[in-house]
């Protein structure tokens, strides 16, 4: 389990993350949702070990992150940041194989081929990373991150994703979410910051609603993503519809003018 207990992070006197407690179980996809400035990225960086966690306690499979060797940590969790830029002309497959730099698997080539096929980037393998489109770059980065934890192992591993679908078109977004969903069978726990509430509602197992550094709600997706909870977090009216358990969830918002009582009539030119 990836377990964070009462973690806090301050910039000056302002709490960015305020006594947050989080559990991510292997085999589950947990979505972090919240408005801009809620502290999602800071929380993410604390959990990944990038920022030192001074107050509170973060453990991976019971081992505290504090004092853990960088290489040991890399064998337990992989991280995909929002943007990665490359300085030098590397090929896509070189970027992906970097994910294997310390795991030293038996069949590195097979893993690279599998993760690149899964992210639909295998046909781009010989191209220079710099020449790819935004969405292609993001899929290559995802392939690199997947390579790090792709091998099936008894120890639970974790994948932290910061808006993994942000430069992708609709079809790719669903495709990526499906791939991420399949990782659950590999004894991997996934934590993803997601912007798209519908993607979160339909792919995640659990949701974590964050506002002003506080975890307001945490739990199974249908229990956490109620209209009241979402409105409280985003300060905007949202409707949540579903035709019963198991059926897809639709989350929608309308222009504020449409939700108010004023009626507008449009004249056709």
């Amino acid at each position, binding site marked *: 389990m990836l377990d964070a207990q009462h973690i806090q992070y301050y910039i000056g006197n302002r709490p960015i993350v305020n006594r947050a407690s989080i559990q991510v179980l292997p085999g589950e996809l947990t979505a972090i949702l919240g408005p801009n400035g809620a502290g999602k990225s800071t929380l993410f960086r604390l959990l*990944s*070990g*990038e920022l030192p966690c001074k107050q509170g306690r973060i453990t991976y499979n019971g081992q505290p992150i504090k004092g853990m060797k*960088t*290489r040991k*940590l*890399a*064998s337990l*969790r*992989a*991280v995909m*940041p929002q943007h*990665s*830029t*490359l*300085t*030098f*002309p*590397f*090929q896509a*497959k*070189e*970027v992906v*194989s*970097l*994910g294997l*730099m*310390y795991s*030293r698997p038996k069949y*590195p*080539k097979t893993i*690279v*081929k599998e993760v690149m096929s899964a992210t639909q980037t295998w046909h781009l393998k010989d191209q220079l990373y*710099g*020449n790819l489109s935004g969405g292609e770059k993001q899929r290559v980065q995802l392939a*690199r*991150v997947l390579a*790090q934890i792709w091998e099936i192992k008894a120890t639970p591993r974790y994948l932290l994703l910061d808006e993994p679908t942000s430069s992708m078109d609709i079809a790719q977004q669903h495709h990526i979410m499906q791939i991420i969903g399949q990782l659950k069978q590999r004894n991997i726990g996934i934590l993803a910051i997601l912007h798209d509430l519908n993607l979160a509602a339909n792919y995640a197992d659990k949701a974590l609603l964050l506002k002003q550094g506080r975890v307001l709600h945490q739990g199974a997706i249908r229990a956490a993503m109620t209209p009241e909870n979402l409105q409280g977090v985003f300060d905007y009216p949202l409707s949540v519809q579903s035709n019963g358990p198991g059926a897809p969830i639709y989350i929608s918002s309308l222009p504020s003018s449409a939700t108010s009582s004023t009626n507008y009539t449009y004249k056709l030119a």
Partner: protein
Amino acid sequence: MLQNLSYSKTAQQSLVLAALGIGLVLLGLLSITIGAFPIPFGHAVSILLSQLGIDSGTFTEQEANVLWQIRLPRILLAILVGGGLGVSGAALQGLFRNPLVEPGLIGVSSGGALFAVIYIVFGSSFPWLGRIFGSFSLPLVAFIGGLINVMLVYKMANQGGKTDISLLILAGVALTALSGALIGLAIFYADEAALRNFTFWSLGDVGGANWDKVKIAFILIFFPSLLIIKQFRNLNALAIGENEAFHMGVDVQRVKYIVLFMSALVVGVGVSMTGTIGFVGLIVPHLLRLSFGADHRLVLPGAFLLGAFLLNGADLLARTVVMPAELPIGIITAILGSPFFIWLILHVKKLNS
């Protein structure tokens, strides 16, 4: 199909490195024979073989002396210094994540030069240095100067894991100017003996090579270069970003210290022996990346070989164009390097994408 993915070198990479190595050996053999005092190729080979105890032909004693006492140490020193400049340029570019970085441009060389001059001028006030370190004192002092400057530049230009290239170049310009001014000041206070030493050093070039220098360079340039080359995997990871490298298990801080420390050592020692030689560290890694890709597994050892080749070629030119006189080698590398640098500045946006 997937040759590039294993952790051993690929066939292509090995081939490129072998070709560079063979080219370097051939150039070395050629350089041995050419010069104000030409030595026929057959004689040169015989002299080399006779050192190994193989008697294979005739040569005069004068030829043997020129080859053994003057030319061979000179070529070996050019190989070590040029290789060191190449590999430290490649590693610093990888660490700063910027293709414009070069030991001369970011002030490492000038820091080394300043401390070398200070030691030459005021060294007699610190006789214990010479007693402890012997002929290693000058190179070691130059290393400290290079280290101070490279640390300062790194601290100034690196903000939140990202290197600001304008800050980097400006910091390099400022430190180079300051070092230059302090060198002038040190010379102002120099007495006549120190001044003579300084003049001798500043005209040093690789022409001042002798076996003592080659031995010191071998210890203080070749081995640190190997340590830098060993960082290839970490530098590859750093190309994606410092945070990403950390996520993949790289101890980023440790890599930084190894590369900064070893580069300062390699460059400082080189400067203490040959004076400042610019642009080798800039051109060499770039040519390799442009031709064979950015994988540091090839770029780092390749930069050593190509840097050695380039400096040897430049030295051959320097001592033949105005024969029997000699041009300072820095002039040749600057004439080749400055237009290349300008081209690079104009194209760096495109290269970065």
